[in-house]
C-alpha cells in the first residue's frame, strides 16, 4: 500500500513551496472547489506557506454542506417510521435539522445504520426482508454512480425493499454559477481529483472557452496540491486559460466512461437547490422513469417541499467564498462542531469545520 509517502515528501514539498514564491507578483484568487481539498489544505498548513499575493477561497464542494435543511428534516421523518431502516454515510449523522439530527434519532431508537458504501444496503435489504431500507443518497459524481449500480444490483437480485432518498448533485453547473457571479473575482480553479476521475477533465473545458478561467485537476496529498498550485499560478500568470491535469495517475480526459454510463442509465439531470446558493439549473440528479421504483419520496408518497435552513447562518456567503468563517457572527460563538448551526460546521469537510479544527 505504498501510495501515500511519496506524495508527502518533505523535500519535494519544500522545492514546490520555493518555486511558488516566484511565479507571479499579481494578486491571485484561487478557489478550491472540493471539501476534501479544503480539509487537506488546512491539515497540511498549506495556507501558511503560500506567497502573500495568492489567496485560496474554499468553494461549495462538500456534499453535506450544500444539502438543504428540508432534506435532513424529511430524512428524520423517514427514520421515525417503524418499517424503515435508514442507511447513511457517517457525515450525515450530525447535520442539524429543524428539531433533531440522525444521531439524536438513533439514540431515541430509530434504526439508523452507518454504511461505507451504498452497496452495503444490498446486504441490509436481503437480511431484513420485513423492513424497508432507505439510503440517503447524497454526494457528487463520486458517489452517484454507486447509487445507480446499487439500484441495478437490487433489481438483479430481486430486492424490492431498498429505496433511495436522492440529493445527488453535479459539480460543473455550480462552477458556472460561481464564475458568472460578479461579486466573486476568481482567477482560477483547483479542480477536484475525485469528481474528475468520473467526469474527466473535458467537463471543465467550458471554463476556459467561455470564461477565460484556467483550472488544474489535482489530488489530495500535499505534493499534489502544491504541484497543482504551481501549475495553476503559472497558467494564470501566462494568461493561458487551459484546463490542466496534474492527477494523471487517476484522472483521464474523458473520465470513467463506465461510471458515466451507469449515471446516465439511472438518472435525469434536473435543476437543484444548493444550500446557501439557491437553485442552480441542471445541477442535480433524479431517478428517471425506469428507476422510479427506487425513489423513496415516491414510494412513501412524501410531498417534499424544499427550504434552505438555518437563519442567521452565513453558510451561503462562505460556500461561495465571499466570506471566511471567522467573519460569520455565529462562528465559534454559537456554532461549534459540538453544536453546529450551519452545515459548513457539521460536515468533516466543511469550510467552517476546517477553520475551527485546524486554524483556530
Amino acid at each position, binding site marked *: *500500500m505504498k501510495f501515500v*509517502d511519496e506524495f508527502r*515528501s*518533505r523535500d519535494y*514539498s519544500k522545492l514546490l*513551496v520555493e518555486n511558488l514564491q516566484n511565479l507571479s507578483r499579481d494578486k491571485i484568487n484561487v478557489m478550491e472547489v472540493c471539501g476534501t481539498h479544503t480539509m487537506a489544505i488546512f491539515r497540511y498548513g*498549506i495556507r501558511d506557506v503560500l506567497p502573500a499575493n495568492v489567496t485560496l477561497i474554499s468553494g461549495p464542494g462538500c456534499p453535506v454542506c450544500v444539502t438543504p435543511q428540508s432534506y435532513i428534516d424529511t430524512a428524520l421523518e423517514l427514520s421515525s417510521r417503524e418499517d424503515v431502516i435508514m442507511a447513511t454515510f457517517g457525515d450525515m*449523522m450530525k447535520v442539524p435539522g429543524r428539531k433533531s439530527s440522525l444521531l439524536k434519532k438513533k439514540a431515541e431508537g430509530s434504526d439508523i445504520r452507518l454504511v461505507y458504501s451504498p452497496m452495503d444496503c444490498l446486504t441490509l435489504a436481503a437480511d431484513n426482508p420485513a423492513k424497508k431500507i432507505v439510503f440517503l443518497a447524497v454526494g457528487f459524481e463520486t458517489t452517484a454512480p454507486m447509487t445507480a449500480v446499487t439500484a441495478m444490483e437490487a433489481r438483479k437480485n430481486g430486492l424490492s425493499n431498498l429505496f433511495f432518498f436522492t440529493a445527488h448533485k453535479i459539480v460543473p453547473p455550480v462552477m458556472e454559477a460561481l464564475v458568472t457571479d460578479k461579486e466573486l473575482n476568481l482567477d482560477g480553479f483547483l479542480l477536484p481529483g475525485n469528481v474528475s476521475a468520473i467526469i474527466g477533465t473535458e467537463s471543465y473545458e467550458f471554463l476556459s472557452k467561455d470564461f477565460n478561467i484556467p483550472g488544474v485537476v489535482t489530488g489530495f496529498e500535499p505534493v499534489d496540491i502544491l504541484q497543482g498550485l504551481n501549475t495553476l499560478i503559472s497558467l494564470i500568470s501566462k494568461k493561458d486559460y487551459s484546463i490542466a491535469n496534474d492527477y494523471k495517475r487517476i484522472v483521464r480526459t474523458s473520465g470513467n466512461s463506465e461510471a458515466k454510463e451507469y449515471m446516465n442509465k439511472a438518472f435525469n439531470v434536473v435543476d437543484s437547490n444548493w444550500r446557501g446558493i439557491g437553485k442552480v439549473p441542471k445541477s442535480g440528479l433524479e431517478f428517471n422513469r425506469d428507476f422510479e421504483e427506487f425513489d423513496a419520496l415516491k414510494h412513501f408518497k412524501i410531498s417534499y417541499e424544499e427550504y434552505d435552513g438555518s437563519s442567521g447562518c452565513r453558510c451561503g456567503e462562505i460556500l461561495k467564498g465571499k466570506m471566511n468563517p471567522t467573519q460569520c457572527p455565529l462562528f465559534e460563538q454559537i456554532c461549534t462542531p459540538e453544536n453546529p448551526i450551519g452545515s459548513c460546521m457539521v460536515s*468533516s469537510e466543511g469550510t467552517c469545520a476546517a477553520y475551527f479544527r485546524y486554524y483556530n
Partner: protein
Amino acid sequence: MQLILDITTNPENGGVKLSTITLSHGSGGTQTNQLINDVFFKYFGNDILNQMNDAAHLAIDFKKLAFTTDSFVVNPLFFKGGNIGKLAVCGTVNDLAVSGAKPLYLTCAFIIEEGFSMADLETIVKTMAEEAENSGVKIVAGDTKVVEKGKVDGVYINTSGIGVIYEDVNINCANAKPGDVIIVNGTIGDHGMTILCERNNFGFEGDLSSDCASLNTLVDCMLEVYNEIHVIRDATRGGVAAVFNEISVSSNVSIVLEENLLPIKEEVKGAAEMLGFDPLYIANEGKLCAFVPEAQAEQVLLAMRTHPLGTNAAIIGRVTEEVGKKVYMKTVVGGKRLVDMPSGILLPRIC
C-alpha cells in the same frame, strides 16, 4: 480494604455442562459455581482467589496506592492481535503502569449475554490469565452476571486494578514543562484501525494488527534509567491527539508535534486515508507518550528501544513556550496547524 467477590448459590439444572451460557449460569446456583470452577478458577486460580472469600484479603506495603477501573465493550470480541480479555487486562495494567505504579491485583466482572459460546468465554478467560501472568498481576476477585439475549453484545468485562506507586516517582499530567521532549513507544493508530477494518470487513489486505499489550515492564525500564519522567500517558480512545490536548490543558503548555517524525504503519496510513481518518485520533492499546526533559531524552529513548514494546520508539515533538497553550503540528510542507481535541464520534466521510 474490601474487594468484593460476588458468588452466591441457588441450585437449578444441576450437573449439566452446557456449551453455551444460559441465564442459569448467572442465577447463583449450581451452574454458576460450575462456571466459576470450570472456567474462572481453572485459569485465574491463585492463593488469594482460591480462598473464595466474599472479598479478597490483601496484604500490601505501600505509601501511595494507584487504583483504577475500566470497562470493555469492544466489537468484534476477537480481533487480530488480541481479544476483549487481553484488552481488559492490558487496559487496567497500563493505567496503573503509566501512573508510575507497579500493578499488583486486578478484579474482573463479566456481564455475559445468554447464549454466548462457552468455548469463546473460555478462550477469553484463558487469554486474560496469560496476560495477567505476563504482566505479573493476580486476579483476586470477580463477578459474573448473565443477561437476556440482546441486552449486551456477547460479553462485557470490567476490570479494576490496584498498584503501588514507586517511591521517588512523580508522574502527573500537570507536570509537562517547556523544553520537554515527547517520546512515543511505537506506531500509532494500530488498534483502532484494526478494529474498524474487522468490524466493517472492508477487505483491505495488509498486516493490520492491534498493538494491545501490557506496558508495565516498558515503563519499569524507562523509570530505571530516569525516574523523574514528568508525564507518561497511555493513548487509548481519542488517540494521541486526545492525550496531548489533556496534557496541554493540565500543564498549561503548548505542544508542537512534527508530522514527519510520527511513526505510522503503511497499512494504517493507507486505510486511514481511504476512510478520511487521521491516525492522531485513532485508538491505541499498547502505546504510551512520555514527556522527558531534553537532557535525559536520548537516554530514555535508547532504554525504550531495548524493550520489545519500544523498538520503534521515536521522539515526535516538544513542549514549547509558544503562545496559545494548545497542541500544534508542524506539517510536512512546513506549515503549522492546530491538533484539536477530538469531538463527538469518529464518522467516516462520504468521498
